[in-house]
C-alpha cells in the first residue's frame, strides 16, 4: 500500500500526486470515503484515476491509497442468482448495509463468505493436475453443477481432497510441486481486463436455440457466436435480450444491464425467479447472473460492467458449459469510454469517441467463441450485444465497429415497431453468417429439406418487397395472379410466423420442431395455391379461403398438440389442390 494526495477532481476523473511507483490499471481508494478507482494514465508524477463512484464533495489534498491490485472479480460458488453492480458489488448486500439508495464507499464481499458448500472431489489425491483441471464439484443450484478448477499458473499433484462442507475461503486441498505447496479453495480471483486462457478456439457448429422464430429459423446465432442488435429506442431491443435470457438453451446466462433503466432490472428481478426453464422445469434464476449498472449509477463502473460480465462468463465456460452473455446496451458502455476520454482531454476520433473504440469493441467480442478448454473439454460463450444508435442511424461509429466484430445482425426497424410487428427484426436487412455452418445441424435435427424451406421463405419475402414497389406504381389489381399469391404467402409468413408475442403464454417460446412444422405448413399452402391457380382458380377466390384462419391460429397451438394440428391442416391444404382437379 502506498499513499498519495489528490491534486485535481473533475467529475469521475481524479488526478493524484505522490503515489509510489503506480502501475497502469492499479485499483486505488480515493479520498476519505475510500471510493474505488482505477489508474488509467500515468504522466510524470501524476496518476490519472477513473473513479467508480460519484466524486461530489471530494477535495484536493485528500489521500489516495494504491492497493497495487488490478480490478478483479471473485469467482466461485454463489455467483448464480446474484445481482451485482458494474464492479461486482452485490446489490442485495449493499441494500442491507446502506438502504434503498446506494451510498458511496459501500462495500461488501462479492460471494457469501459464511455459506458452506458441499464439495465432492472428482480427482484422486495424488493425480497430476494443471491449470483448469477439474478437481471436484459443488451443486451450486439445482440447474448447475459448479466445477472446482485448479487456478491458473498451478500444476503438480493434488493432495488432501476430501468430501465435506466448506466455505469459499476454506482450504479444500493443495497442489504440490516439489517443495512448493499451494492451498486450493472453492474460489479464485481473476483480473477482468484480461481474458481467461483456452487451448484453442474452434468453429461453432450448434445453434443457440432461443425459441424465437425469426431468430432460430431465419437468422440463427451459433453457440459460441456473436450477434449485434442495433435499433432505435422503442424498437424492442430490451424485450429481445430478455426473451433470449429467458428462453435460450444455454447452460448459464450472464445478463449485463449496462447504463439502462432501473425499472427494467426490477422487472427482471421480479419475473425471472417465477419463470421456469422449458427443459428442466427449474426457475431460470438458478442459471442466471445479473449485472446491473443503471444509467444513473457511476459512469466508470458502467465501463467496467461488461468486463465483469464476460469474465464471469469465461469462468463458467471453463467448466465446460455453454454460456450466453447479453449486454444491453454496448452503446452506453462506449459512451462511458467517450466521457472518460473527454475528461482526459484525449484527441477524439469519430463523433468524439476515442480513437481506440474499434479496438476495444473487437477485443470484447473476441472473448466469445466455442473453445477447447485447457482441460480438453469444450465450452462456449455466445455474446449478444444491443446497440443504441442515435436516431436509429447505424452509420455511427459504435454500430459500425460492432458490425465489423460480430457475425449476426438483427436489424431492428422502427416502422415494424410502430405497426406493433414484434420482434421488429427486419427480414430484408438482417443477416446471419452462421447459416452455412449450421446447415447440417438443421437438416439433421429439424427437417431434411430445411435448406430449401428456408430459401423458399426468404425468396418469398424478397419477392414481396419487389412486388410492393410495383404496386406503388400500377396498383394492386394490375398485378399478375401469381404475384398476388406471393403477397398472400408473404403476409402469412410475416404475420403468422415471424410475428411473435413475448407476452402470450404459448407464443412466447416455440420449439425448433414446431418452427419447422409451422414453416412447412405455410410453404405447402403456397404450393397448393399455385397449383390451384394453374388449374383456373382466381387469386381473389383463394384469398378468401377459410384455411387462412387456421394458419393464423397455429402459433397459439400448444407444443403437444401441434403435430396433430399440422397434419389436419395438411389434409385441408391437400384438399385445396384436389378440389380443383
Amino acid at each position, binding site marked *: 500500500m502506498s499513499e498519495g494526495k489528490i491534486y485535481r477532481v473533475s467529475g469521475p476523473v481524479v488526478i493524484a500526486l505522490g503515489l509510489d511507483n503506480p502501475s497502469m490499471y492499479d485499483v486505488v481508494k480515493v479520498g476519505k470515503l475510500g471510493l474505488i478507482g482505477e489508474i488509467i494514465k500515468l504522466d510524470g508524477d501524476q496518476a490519472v484515476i477513473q473513479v467508480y463512484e460519484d466524486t461530489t464533495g471530494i477535495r484536493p489534498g485528500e489521500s489516495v491509497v494504491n492497493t497495487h491490485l488490478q480490478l478483479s472479480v471473485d469467482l466461485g460458488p454463489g455467483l448464480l442468482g446474484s445481482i451485482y453492480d458494474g464492479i461486482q458489488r452485490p446489490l442485495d448486500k*449493499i*441494500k442491507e448495509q446502506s438502504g434503498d*439508495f446506494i451510498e458511496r464507499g459501500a462495500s461488501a464481499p462479492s460471494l457469501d463468505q459464511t455459506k458452506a458448500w458441499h464439495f465432492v472431489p472428482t480427482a484422486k489425491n495424488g493425480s497430476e493436475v494443471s491449470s483448469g483441471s477439474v478437481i471436484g464439484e459443488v451443486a451450486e443450484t439445482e440447474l448447475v453443477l459448479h466445477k472446482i478448477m485448479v487456478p491458473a499458473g498451478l500444476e503438480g499433484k493434488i493432495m488432501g481432497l476430501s468430501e465435506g462442507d466448506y466455505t469459499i475461503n476454506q482450504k479444500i486441498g493443495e497442489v504440490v510441486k516439489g517443495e512448493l505447496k499451494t492451498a486450493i479453495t472453492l474460489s479464485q480471483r481473476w483480473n477482468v481486463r484480461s481474458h481467461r486462457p483456452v487451448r484453442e478456439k474452434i468453429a461453432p457448429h450448434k445453434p443457440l436455440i432461443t425459441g424465437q422464430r425469426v431468430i432460430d429459423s431465419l437468422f440463427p446465432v451459433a453457440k459460441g457466436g456473436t450477434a449485434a442488435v442495433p435499433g432505435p429506442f422503442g424498437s424492442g431491443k430490451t424485450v429481445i435480450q430478455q426473451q433470449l435470457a429467458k428462453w435460450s438453451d444455454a447452460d448459464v446466462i450472464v445478463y449485463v444491464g449496462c447504463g439502462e*433503466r432501473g*425499472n427494467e432490472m426490477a422487472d427482471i428481478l421480479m419475473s425471472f425467479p417465477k419463470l421456469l426453464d422449458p427443459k428442466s422445469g427449474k426457475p431460470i434464476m438458478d442459471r442466471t447472473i445479473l449485472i446491473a449498472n443503471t*444509467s444513473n449509477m457511476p459512469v466508470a463502473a458502467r465501463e467496467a460492467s461488461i468486463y465483469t460480465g464476460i469474465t464471469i462468463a469465461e469462468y463458467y465456460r471453463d467448466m465446460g458449459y455453454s454460456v450466453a452473455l447479453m449486454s444491453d446496451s454496448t452503446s452506453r458502455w462506449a459512451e462511458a469510454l467517450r466521457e472518460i476520454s473527454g475528461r482526459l482531454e484525449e484527441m477524439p476520433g469519430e463523433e*468524439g469517441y476515442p480513437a481506440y473504440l474499434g479496438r476495444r469493441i473487437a477485443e470484447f467480442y473476441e472473448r466469445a467463441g466455442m473453445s477447447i478448454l485447457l482441460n480438453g473439454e469444450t465450452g462456449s460463450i455466445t455474446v449478444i450485444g444491443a446497440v443504441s444508435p442515435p436516431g436509429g442511424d447505424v452509420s455511427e461509429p459504435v454500430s459500425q465497429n460492432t458490425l465489423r466484430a460480430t457475425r449476426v445482425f438483427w436489424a431492428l426497424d422502427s416502422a415494424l415497431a410502430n405497426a*406493433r410487428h414484434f420482434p421488429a427484426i427486419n427480414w430484408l436487412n438482417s443477416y446471419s453468417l452462421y447459416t452455412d455452418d449450421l446447415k447440417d445441424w438443421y437438416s439433421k435435427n429439424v427437417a431434411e429439406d430445411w435448406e430449401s424451406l428456408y430459401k423458399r421463405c426468404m425468396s418469398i419475402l424478397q419477392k414481396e418487397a419487389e412486388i410492393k414497389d410495383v404496386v406503388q406504381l400500377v396498383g394492386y389489381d394490375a398485378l399478375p395472379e401469381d404475384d398476388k399469391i406471393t403477397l398472400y404467402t408473404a403476409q402469412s409468413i410475416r404475420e403468422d410466423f415471424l410475428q411473435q408475442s413475448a407476452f402470450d403464454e404459448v407464443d412466447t417460446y416455440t420449439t425448433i420442431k414446431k418452427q419447422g412444422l409451422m414453416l412447412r405448413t405455410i410453404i405447402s399452402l403456397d404450393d397448393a395455391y399455385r397449383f390451384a391457380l394453374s388449374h383456373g382458380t382466381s387469386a381473389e377466390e383463394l384469398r378468401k379461403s377459410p384455411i387462412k384462419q387456421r394458419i393464423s391460429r397455429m402459433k397459439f397451438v400448444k407444443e403437444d398438440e401441434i403435430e396433430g394440428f399440422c397434419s389436419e391442416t395438411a389434409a385441408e391444404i391437400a384438399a385445396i389442390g384436389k378440389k380443383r382437379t
Partner: protein
Amino acid sequence: MGDVYYKTIKKITSVLLFVEGIKDAAYGEMADIKLEGGNIVRGQVLDSRNGLSIIQSFGDTRSMNLKETSVRLTGSAATLNVSTNMLGRVFDGLGRPRDNGPPIRSDEQIEINGSAINPYSREEPSEFIQTGISTIDCMNTLVRGQKLPIFSGAGLPHNKLAAQIARQAKLRSNDEGFAVVFGGMGINSEEANFFKREFESTGALEKSIMFLNLSSEPSMERIILPRLVLTTAEYLAYNQGMHVLAILTDMTNYCEALREVSAAREEVPGRRGFPGYMYTDLSTIYERAGKIKGRKGSITQMPILTMPNDDITHPIPDLTGYITEGQIVLSRELYRKGIYPNVSVLPSLSRLMNQGIGKRSTREDHRNVADQLYAAYARGIEVGNLIEIVGEEALTESDKKYLKFSSEFEGKFVSQGYYEDRDIEKTLELGWDLFGALDTEEMKRLKPEQIKKYGKWKDAQRETD
C-alpha cells in the same frame, strides 16, 4: 471555507469563473459570488485542483469583474430545505420563494443530486393510472412510478395535455389523486401563468409545488431546477408516503443550458454541440422516478420537451427516449386537422403498459384491442400514403375500409374534449365500435372469445357460433 473571500479571480466567461489560490474546494461544492455592490450570486465548483477552481455561476455574470468580485466557498454541496409546508407554494430556480411567502424552515436538508436507487430495492411499477385520455389509457398506458415524456413541437398544445393529465389522473381503486411538483425551465410567463391558473381553478394548488425559471431569468438555474423538483418529489414520496406526479417542462431548455456550460468549458462536443455526457446527465434526472419496495409513495415523471424542427432523432428526444419508459409523441398533422389531443399513436409507446393492464387491473381484452388498433391504424395510414401515388380508384375494398377506419379512429377515438374524462371501459368500447367497420377475419390480434364477447359486428354472433 467559511468566511474567507477569495479575490483571486483570474478569468470570467459568460458562465464560468476561474479562481486561483483555492487549495481544496470540494467537487460540486456551492459557492457565493459577491459582486462589488454587495449582491450575491450562487455558484458551484465544476473542477477543482490545488490552486485553481472553476466555478459555474448560476446567475448573470454581468458586472462581475476581476478586481472587486470575490468568491466564498460554503463548505457543502447544493442542498434544499424540504417540508410539507412547501405544498401550495411557488419557488424560483434556486429554491427561493417567489410568491412573497416566507422561506421554508425545516430540519430536513437534502442534497439535491440524490443517490441512485439500488436496483434491488426498486419495485416494478404496475398500477394503472387512468388519465381519462383514450390514446394514453388504451394504447400507451401510464403506470404509477413510470417516466413517460411528452415529445412535442413548438406551438403544439403539450401544456394543455399535461394539465389535463394532472387534473384527471387517478387510480381506479380509489380517488386519491397526485401531488404535483411542477418544474418550469426557461418557459415564458404566459406558460407559467397557464399552469398556475390551471392548478388554482381545479383546487390542485394546495397539493402542488411549483419551481419556476422564466425565459428572462438566468439560464444556469435551469440546471439546478429539475433537481430541486425531484428532491422535493422524493421527500414527499418516500418520506411522506405521497404519490407524486413530477412535470418538467421544457427539457429542451435544460439541455441547452447544459450545452452552454459545456461550450464555456471548451469540452469536446458530441452531436449538435451537446456534451458527450448528456445521456448520463439526463439519466440522473429521469431515473429519479419509480417506486421502492416497502415504501408507500411513488414518483411518476412526465417531462415535456419540444423537438427542434419536430425531429425525433434530434439528440434531446433521442437520448430521452433511450432513458424513459416510452414516449407520447404529439403530431403537427393531427393538430392542423383540429384534433385535440393530437397524440400520434404510432411512434408513441409505453414500455410498462403490460404490467399495468389486463384482467386484474383493466380488462382482459385491453392488450389485444390496443394491438389491433395499432395494426389497423398503421394499415390505414399506409393506404392513405398509397392513394397519393395510385389514386383512390386503385384501392381494393378492404383498403377502403381501412382508410375509413383510420379517419374515424382519429375523429372519434383520438379526439376528445379538454374536460372529457373517459374511463377505460368507455375507451375500450370505442375501440370495439371502430372494429365494426372492418372484416372479422382480419382481426388477427383479437382472440375469438373476445370477439364473441365484445364484438360489435351485426353478424358477429353468427360467425363465431
